[in-house]
């Protein structure tokens, strides 16, 4: 089952093309949507919610067309915006009950679900106090709770870790992972930080300038590559020349040398070269891809 599908999705604003013939197929699970600021992440979410008209192409969410079924989609989807969106003068309980009812949940069920969901996101005694007095971390939890309170089939979380300290970030990421695995709700989570999505996502979609850059299982990004990284205390270039003379493909990458791994003997060649030159070896490791490499390897 495909939860999100777009075909040639294009969105032009008077001065800028936010999405450019985007083709996506998203399967259930926790899916990361990565892109720099202005890459079109928030625009995509607004279109998927049926709130922005499409210029060209089309999109379906949970099998429903965004052009014609916006209301039906919004009834089954939870949305956590990037920016502040909570009134200061009501309590988290009061607010979440109201938001559950706005999604069509009857009053008594709205109260029950609010109590459940606030507990799941980790809000306890403070849920009866006005939101205005909450910390950033608590507010992010309320924002998450209001997107979860009507038990959606799919959640759009726009930069949920924004403004959180490292501990709060870990908590939030753990919660999102739990929503995807324990709660069985699919999640589309955006971030401009690749590292945090590596930890929680099943799939990652990368868009840039409104175009699809890459969409893959998380494993595909991080599989071992046929490269080893060598770091020496000094004499990086000397070593580089020596290895090149030995017939290896070598290139510099910051303090490291990246050496193409031909076979197991490559390690020995590197070791011997380092010893012969009398250099201090700091690190010798087989490199794994990080999602962030997608950016660096992209042709400029």
């Amino acid at each position, binding site marked *: 089952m495909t939860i999100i599908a777009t075909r040639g999705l294009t969105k032009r604003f008077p001065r800028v093309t936010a999405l450019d013939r985007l083709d996506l197929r998203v399967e259930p699970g926790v899916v990361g949507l990565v892109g720099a600021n202005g890459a079109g992440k928030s625009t995509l979410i607004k279109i998927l919610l049926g709130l922005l008209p499409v210029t060209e192409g089309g999109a379906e969410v949970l099998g429903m067309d965004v052009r014609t079924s916006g209301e039906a989609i919004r009834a089954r*989807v939870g949305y956590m915006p990037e920016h502040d969106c909570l*009134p200061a*003068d009501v309590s988290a309980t*009061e607010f979440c009950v*109201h938001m559950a009812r*706005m999604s*069509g*949940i*009857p009053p008594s069920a709205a109260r029950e*679900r609010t109590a459940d969901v606030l507990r799941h996101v980790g809000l306890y005694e403070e849920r009866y106090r006005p939101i205005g007095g909450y910390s950033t971390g608590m507010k992010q939890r309320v924002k998450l709770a209001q997107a979860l309170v009507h038990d959606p089939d799919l959640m759009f979380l726009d930069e949920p870790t924004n403004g959180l300290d490292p501990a709060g970030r870990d908590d939030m990421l753990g919660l999102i992972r739990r929503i995807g695995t324990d709660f069985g709700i699919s999640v589309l989570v955006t971030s401009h930080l690749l590292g945090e999505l590596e930890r929680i996502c099943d799939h990652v979609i990368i868009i840039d300038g409104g175009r699809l850059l890459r969409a893959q299982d998380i494993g595909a990004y991080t599989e071992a590559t046929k490269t080893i990284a060598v770091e020496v205390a000094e004499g990086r270039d000397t070593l580089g020349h020596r290895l090149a003379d030995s017939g290896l493909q070598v290139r510099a990458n910051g303090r490291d040398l990246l050496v193409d791994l031909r076979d197991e003997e490559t390690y020995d060649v590197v070791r011997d070269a380092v010893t012969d030159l009398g250099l201090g070896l700091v690190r010798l490791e087989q490199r794994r891809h990080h999602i962030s490499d997608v950016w660096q390897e992209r042709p400029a």
Partner: protein
Amino acid sequence: MTATTIHDIGYRHYGGPRLGRGYAIRSLYSNSLRGVFGLGRPGRAKVLPFALFALMCIPALVSVAVRLVMAKLVPTAPPINLFPYRAYIFDLQAISAIFLAAQSPQMVSRDLRFHVMPLYLSRPIRRFDYILAKLAAMFSALLIVFAAPLTLLYLGALLNKMNAWDQLTQYGPALGGAVVYALVLAAFGLCVASLTPRRGFGVAAIIALYLVSYGAVSILQGILVANTYDSAAGYVGLLSPYTLVEGFQTWALRQEHTGIGYVEPGAGGAVFVVVVVAVLAAALGILVARYRKVAS
């Protein structure tokens, strides 16, 4: 409560009914109406609306009490109310104007200021539904504030064994007037308040517009009446919310006139009806245009 117990409870899916857009609009309406009176908000949010509501009702209670005592002391006293139905809202307009100025911004500016709109719009409602629910809530709140004292007067009259039918012929049209007052004032208040996300600005703007328009109308009417242009003075009433509705109910509901200036019963008075309708339509147009620009 520890983290362990929380994990043990587990997540429960919701299998019950999901009511649609109509229910969502009604929920927004009732939540907003409660909000006007500070219900579901901290205690201090309740003080002002309930104090103003009480102030609106006190003259009616005094009127009933005076009549009760009078009937005991002077059995031959004529059966009249100290505060007549038809003039009640107009005479106490300062109270409802403060109510409107204080509570309209909390109804709409708050959602703009805290950027709550994206959350509403990501639910199964449309922009127009939001406007409709908020207008209906403000209208209902004002109608409660207006109808409660009128109803107290009527019940008091029945308690005083005044002629029930005679009282009803005054109470009924006054309630009709209350509906129009509530409509016009709700549209006026929300229109102004929706233009600023700052609550203070909203309060100040509504009060200022009310004071300036009413002041200007009063002065103009005074000058015109002094020069015996009574009819012209009546039409000047079109320029301020309370005098506009006063003119409307004088003509349309065949009520005795309150305030100065007087429009002859006839075709001329229909202007007030036209202007009331035009004001409501314009307010709706402004709100729709305003909310089209609010980011989702």
